[in-house]
């Protein structure tokens, strides 16, 4: 058991660290300012072009084909350099890798990985949140196309996306989990209307909703076979629960570092209670970093994803919300017209126990699939 770098890992770390000296775009903390989302595409492409993105994905789709643990190194170095985290789209990549045919993978994955094409994920609907399988968006065959009609919501990055991985019902007679198919849908077309959703911290570039009214998608752009949509969705949400896939360790580590700098700049102005909150954020963020190292190591022999993703999602949520509480404690509520960045960090942290599957759903999964407790 060794948390230290191998010689090859150390060489990679040094190269990355040197590159970051000149290439940190200095964006505001993620999810606190629309400027972050405006700069994120360029950051993604810069990381990719320098060979520091898609580290553990196959070379054939634009990845670097490196062992899983390189992502842990990337996250540490990004945070320590004060750089933005890596873009979180591993769940889409893994969904396509696991379920799309060769042709679809060849056409879509390189653009997704390189950041030249922006993607969003059209899963949730107003009446299909935790109960995703009850989704009602429909895809009706019309010649060589499917025609999509429906309403998607809580769709991250829908405003900027070129493509949407959309789940729609193709078989209305099949049981609800079986009649769903997945498509790669081009966003900039008639019949697609998008509207940003303003989040509780005021940002408008992250969250959105999309209505499809006669949008068209070629049948060749279906991901997998008709009825495979649910299996793809489970792969995607499985990866969406994993901090190792999302790269959030970098985000938390950077926030803790920045909060620590605020405190050490004027230590006497903080109470023990405020510092205690910061201390817990340090502890949680480090815990998550080591947990991700453990998880990524377990996958050095090949990727497998089971119910442990729900464990990781809960640990990630507890970490994000501990960091959020530290931001609130240390950064204050920004009265008197001060900088409200830390308040926004705190408010954004409340979403983590909902996005990608609520904490309550994760607990159900841990109870049933890991602890083998009986169904209610």
């Amino acid at each position: 058991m060794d948390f230290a770098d191998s010689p090859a890992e150390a060489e990679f770390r040094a190269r990355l660290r040197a590159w970051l000296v000149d290439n940190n775009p200095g964006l505001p903390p993620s999810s606190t300012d629309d400027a972050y989302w405006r700069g994120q595409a360029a950051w993604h492409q810069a990381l990719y072009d320098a060979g520091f993105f898609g580290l553990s994905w196959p070379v054939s789709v634009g990845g670097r084909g490196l062992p899983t643990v390189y992502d842990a190194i990337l996250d540490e170095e990004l945070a320590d350099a004060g750089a933005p985290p890596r873009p979180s789209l591993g769940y889409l990549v893994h969904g396509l890798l696991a379920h799309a045919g060769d042709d679809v993978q060849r056409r879509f994955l390189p653009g997704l990985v390189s950041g030249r094409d922006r993607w969003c994920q059209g899963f949730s609907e107003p009446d299909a949140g935790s109960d995703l399988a009850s989704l009602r968006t429909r895809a009706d065959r019309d010649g060589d196309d499917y025609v999509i009609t429906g309403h998607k919501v809580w769709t991250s990055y829908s405003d900027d996306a070129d493509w949407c991985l959309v789940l729609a019902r193709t078989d209305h007679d099949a049981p609800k989990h079986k009649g769903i198919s997945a498509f790669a849908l081009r966003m900039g077309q008639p019949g697609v209307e998008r509207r940003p959703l303003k989040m509780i911290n005021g940002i408008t570039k992250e969250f959105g909703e999309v209505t499809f009214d006669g949008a068209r998608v070629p049948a060749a752009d279906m991901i997998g076979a008709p009825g495979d949509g649910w299996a793809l969705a489970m792969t995607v949400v499985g990866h969406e629960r994993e901090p190792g896939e999302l790269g959030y360790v970098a985000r938390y580590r950077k926030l803790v570092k920045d909060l620590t700098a605020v405190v050490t700049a004027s230590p006497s102005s903080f109470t023990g209670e405020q510092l205690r909150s910061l201390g817990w954020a340090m502890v949680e963020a480090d815990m998550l970093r080591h947990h991700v190292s453990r998880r990524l190591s377990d996958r050095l022999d090949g990727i497998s994803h089971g119910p442990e993703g729900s464990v990781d999602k809960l640990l990630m949520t507890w970490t994000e919300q501990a960091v959020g509480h530290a931001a609130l404690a240390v950064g204050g509520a920004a009265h008197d017209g001060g900088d409200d960045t830390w308040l926004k960090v705190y408010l954004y942290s409340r979403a983590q126990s909902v996005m990608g599957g609520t904490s309550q759903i994760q607990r159900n999964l841990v109870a049933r699939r890991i602890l083998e407790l009986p169904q209610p």
Partner: protein
Amino acid sequence: MDVRFSAEQAALRDSVVQVVDRFGPKAVPQLDDAERAAKLDAAVDAAGWRELRTADEGGRPWASGVEAAIVAEELARGVADVAFVGPTLAAELRRLCGSSTASAGARETVGLTSDLGAPGVDIAVDAAGAASALGLDGGDVVELSVGGPLPPVDLTRPCTAVTRGQVIGALAHDDTTRWTALGLALACADLVGTMRGAVELSRLYAQERRQYGVAVGSFQAVQHLLADAYVSMEGSRSVALHAAWAVDALPPADALAAASTAKAYCSRAARAVCETAIQVHGGIGNTWDCLAHVFLRRALLSIDLLGGEGPSLTLVLAHRGVRDGLR
């Protein structure tokens, strides 16, 4: 980076599991079975686990903090009533001050301050079968003779009064730091094992115990308690493994920071997890004959060992330049 156990480490874990499954207490009344406890002690002796941190020819420990943590975790999982962490820390003290081992065959455990929060000369912990203890006073390594037993908190690891003996050596500051890191890391491993055992005990009970005509484990309210306990244990395990690795792999100050990070996390988690175990057991959980309180009591001792949440958070903050934080 590869955080998986090596084949040797997995084999060590398996052999501890075997010993605990064979000789560990399976129920509270078995804690009074001296014959069983003697067999457990003899098996641990024969395996040589208490010598993992004694010095080899070059003065280095025979095994790293990871191996010692593996033993501590598995012993705690089975609430094994056998000395391990105390004698291991005593062996580390002797190794670091360059003293030869205690007289052959005589077991030596470790001395701490009376609140267990720091190395000291007030009390001997994990003293089952111990003839003497080794404490730290300032930088001095002090021999202690073991006195009568104190009222037990942990039913599996007794504490005793001590009488001060002679100074046998001294520890440099860096060595004290590294010794403390080992102590905290082993306390964390013990807490992780305790949590694993408590969660498993409760999981099995929730599957069996029926109310309203169904297993209580089918109720979401109970499921969510146990899910949180399991997740807290997993997070604790990750941070505790890192601390165990850091003991020998990082510079002393960084090893101590890793250990105090883990100790803060594991201390908070372990109390909550063991309290959950009692809650899930309902009325039975509040009776002496249910193992749930044995886990909680073991956790309470490990939490206090070299400092729980508050002192550990202070060390975490201090390592990052936030001093005198928790006034």
